[in-house]
C-alpha cells in the first residue's frame, strides 16, 4: 500500500517564554493532556524533545508525524479554584504541540485577570 508522503515529524513552533493556551478538546482514546489543564494559559518553560504521538501509538499506529513536547508552566492560582497557596506558585505540565495554541503577548498567564470563571 502506498501512502501519501508526509513529514515524519513536526518542527517546534514555540520557544521558551512563549505564551500558549492548551486547547479544550475531548477526542476519544488515550490522551496525555490532563483534563484539569485543558483551556488553561501558560508559558513555555522548555522544549523537552520530539516524540511519537502517543494518541496514535495507543492504536498501534506509527506515531508519525512525531510531535514536539513542551514543559508548560501555569499559575496554580489560575488553575485551581480556591487555591490557598501563594499567588506565585506554579505547576509544570508536559503538553504535546498539537494541544497548544499561541496566546497574544498582551495577556499575562497566571495573573488574576486571566482567571476564567469555572
Amino acid at each position, binding site marked *: 500500500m502506498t501512502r501519501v508522503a508526509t513529514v515524519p515529524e513536526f518542527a517546534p513552533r514555540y520557544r521558551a517564554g512563549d505564551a500558549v493556551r492548551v486547547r479544550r478538546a*475531548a477526542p476519544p*482514546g*488515550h*490522551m496525555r493532556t*490532563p*483534563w*484539569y*489543564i485543558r483551556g488553561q494559559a501558560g508559558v513555555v518553560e522548555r522544549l523537552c524533545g520530539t516524540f511519537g504521538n*502517543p*494518541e496514535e*501509538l*495507543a*492504536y*498501534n499506529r506509527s506515531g508519525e508525524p512525531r510531535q514536539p513536547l513542551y514543559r508548560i508552566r501555569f499559575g496554580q492560582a489560575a488553575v*485551581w479554584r480556591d487555591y490557598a497557596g501563594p499567588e506565585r506558585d506554579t505547576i509544570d505540565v508536559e503538553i504535546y504541540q498539537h494541544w497548544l495554541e499561541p496566546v497574544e503577548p498582551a495577556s499575562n498567564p497566571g495573573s488574576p485577570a486571566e482567571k476564567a470563571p469555572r
Partner: protein
Amino acid sequence: MIPGEAASNLPPGRSYHDMGGLPAGPVEPAEHNYAPWEKRVDALMVLLSGPRRNLLKVDELRRNIEGLGARAYDSMSYYERWMAAVSAILIERGVIAIDELGRKMSEIEAQYREATPP
C-alpha cells in the same frame, strides 16, 4: 468517596481515570512487597514491549487500562489492570487465541480451588 461514585458526576468526554484535582482520599506512600505473579506481569509487559518482539506499545496498554470502565478500574488492583490490558492487546494483535486463553484461565482457576481449602 464511594468507588465509582465520581464517574456519574464527570463532564461528558472526561475519562474516569483522568482524576487530577478530584477528591480521591489520602495517598499512602508506603512501600510494599509484590507478589510473584505481579512481578511476572511486569516482566511480561517489558518483554512484550521490547524492540525484539514489539508485540505491545505502552500507549496501547494505557488505552486499554483507561477503557476498562469505572467499576473495573476501581475493583482491580494495579497489576490486575495491567493483565487485563495485556490480554486484550494480545487478542487484538492475534498473538493468542481467545479460546486458548479461556481454557488456560479455567485450568488455573481449578488448580487454585484445589490448593485452597474452602
